[in-house]
């Protein structure tokens, strides 16, 4: 009598564990140990007290958001508009300033240098910022913004604004802005290169047809180039926002989140709280907040990309 294959447990095992899937097992084990387990452990840790080990629910989240020495949202200061506003707010300010400048300047440079002689060399120079390690970039900016040694202040003196010279990253009102400006230089090359690739994908016939129809350069740019770069723009925006949310190196090197927490950001506060404060539970809470923000945003942008 033949055994019923469907009732044979080995039948299902053999169907599931095909040869190709068996080859995935080492990578899966690696992911489980170095990715999934730390994620689960971090989320778990964020719900327990660092000192007593007791379950505290959202206590750590409340602490890091509102009640720490440098809360992620400093409500009283936010209402008055005086720094420090909080690490989370600083990240939003970073996005609000950095994102549009990088996207627009990247697109502008890509279009400008598309058919220009020597454009490749200029693009390479602009792209240098992306390949420089952020730590090195941070050290560069400490020098650039220095009152005595910095070229920024030397330039101000040259144009007759010597009275404005200062060590820009040392002051509460300019620390965050000075780092953001520096990061614009670092990241603009990324947008430029991605847009350059995107421009290659626009059919030439569209521009020819527009030229025949007598469209101006501005109209051609606005009605053809920008819409055709939609999916490229989504990529640039997504990558840039994710980069801005997890920014750490340049803050660490230039200002250490100071003075007085005025240039603090999520990632730096997480490092400070966990490793200097020894409060791994609170650090885990910040990590979870950061992860939810990045996953949420990335999921939203991927959804946008798939829509026509």
């Amino acid at each position: 009598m033949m055994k019923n294959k469907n009732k044979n447990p080995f039948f299902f095992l053999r169907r599931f564990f095909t040869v190709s899937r068996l080859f995935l097992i080492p990578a899966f084990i690696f992911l489980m140990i170095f990715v999934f387990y730390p994620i689960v452990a971090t989320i778990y840790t964020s719900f327990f007290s660092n000192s007593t080990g007791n379950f505290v629910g959202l206590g750590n989240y409340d602490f890091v958001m509102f009640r720490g020495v440098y809360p992620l949202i400093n409500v009283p200061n936010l209402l008055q508009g005086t720094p420090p506003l909080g690490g989370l707010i600083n990240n939003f300010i970073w996005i609000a300033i950095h994102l549009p400048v990088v996207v627009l300047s990247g697109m502008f440079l890509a279009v400008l240098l598309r058919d220009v002689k020597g454009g490749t060399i200029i693009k390479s120079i602009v792209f240098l910022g992306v390949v420089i390690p952020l730590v090195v970039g941070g050290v560069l900016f400490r020098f650039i913004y220095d009152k005595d040694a910095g070229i920024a202040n030397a330039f101000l003196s040259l144009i007759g604004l010597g009275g404005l010279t200062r060590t820009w990253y040392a002051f509460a009102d300019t620390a965050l802005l000075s780092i953001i400006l520096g990061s614009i230089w670092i990241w603009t090359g990324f947008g430029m290169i991605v847009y350059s690739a995107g421009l290659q994908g626009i059919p030439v016939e569209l521009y020819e047809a527009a030229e025949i129809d007598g469209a101006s350069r501005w109209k051609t740019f606005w009605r053809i180039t920008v819409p055709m770069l939609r999916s490229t723009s989504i990529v640039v925006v997504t990558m840039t926002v994710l980069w801005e949310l997890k920014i750490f190196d340049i803050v660490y090197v230039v200002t250490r989140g100071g003075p007085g927490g005025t240039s603090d950001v999520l990632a730096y506060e997480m490092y400070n709280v966990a490793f200097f404060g020894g409060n791994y539970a609170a650090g885990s809470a910040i990590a979870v907040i950061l992860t939810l923000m990045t996953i949420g945003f990335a999921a939203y942008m991927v959804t946008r990309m798939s829509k026509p």
Partner: protein
Amino acid sequence: MSKKLSGISKTIAAIVLIIIIIVAGVLVYFYYGSTQPKPTLTVYALWTGTEQYNFEQALGNFTQNTGINVTYYGQTTENLLVSVPQQLANPPYDVDVIIAPWPYWISDNSPYLTTVNDVVTESDFPANIINPVKDESGNLWAAPFKLSGKPGFWFRDSFFQDNGLTVPTTYDEFKNTLLPAIKAVPGVEQAIASGDTVGWPLSDTAEGFIIGLGGYQLQLDLEKGPSARNWTDPQVENVFGNLTDLLEAGYFSTPADWEAQLAKLWDGKYGIYWQGSFITTLPEIQDVNDLDFFPFPGTNGVSGSVDYAVITKDAPHLNEAKQLVQYLAGADAQEIMVGQGGFLATNVNVPSSAYTTIDKKVVAFMGEPGMTIVPDLDDTIGGQWQQTFWDQLKLLWTSPSTSTMNNVLEALQTAAIQQQGP
């Protein structure tokens, strides 16, 4: 009979052979052991540049005397505070001996250290230097090595003489006579240099004001935490109020790299600079005979920090590490360091004749009757509070005002409660 004799001879021969083998084995073992190269110890500390060079002279003397090589690795403050404890908690590792200036760090990491009771003679050191690294059970976790005093404001003698400046004896003279006079000297940017890159130059200056205007007991109370003294206490507000007044008047420079500020002090861009006694050995001080200091006018205390040598629990070469720590804590090593300048000995057996002239003056000042040495404030409290203290002082320095001062004190109070309890 001959058979019996043959048997006895064989037994004796066998015994003799065994004895010869054992003796030969022992001789080979000791010979082999004595000709094997000694292990190389790994030492971590914060020193670089001249301080590293000076320290390596003492290590070289140790190697010469014992044959034990030592490799020194300079560490950043961040690395020693954050990364090295992670290593210690997860052996194996390479490091045998670490030299650290933070008693709280030593206490926090004591589970990963070896006691040094059998290595150090406690009576060789003042009690207030030994006690911070001794627990309630009498375990001694570190050996004192180097003492750094923060005796006051350093200046160039020739700068004062050339510009008719005199050392103030009261705070009023300091604030209303000396500082304006320095500021008026041609070429001077600000009267007082402010150091940065790391946070301790500003915190040392703040401590000078705390002790000078509030008394040494105020610093001791603040070190104990809010249970002894709040940062919003009127006495603390008074101290910081005076400091803020000077900041608002523009007497302090913007914080900049602390070593570069030393060079600018020497070039006459600043008049005075609050610093530790170790600067007497730095290359920026081009002529140590032209260097002098004056204490905070009217002070009854001086902040001092001690560099302690600890032995890691899983040190790869424990016995040799103990030899090294015993040497560093001893008078011989410390006398070598003292002779190079910028180093104050913790061992009471180091003669005063070993010191350079300026260091002798520092030692004499710190030992004056009525002068109390207190532990460094932020090194004692440590942790996130120390980072907050450094960061908040930068804010006060760059945006001085009464409201900023109040916010700074509130932040320090919040951080102190979170770390030390209410």
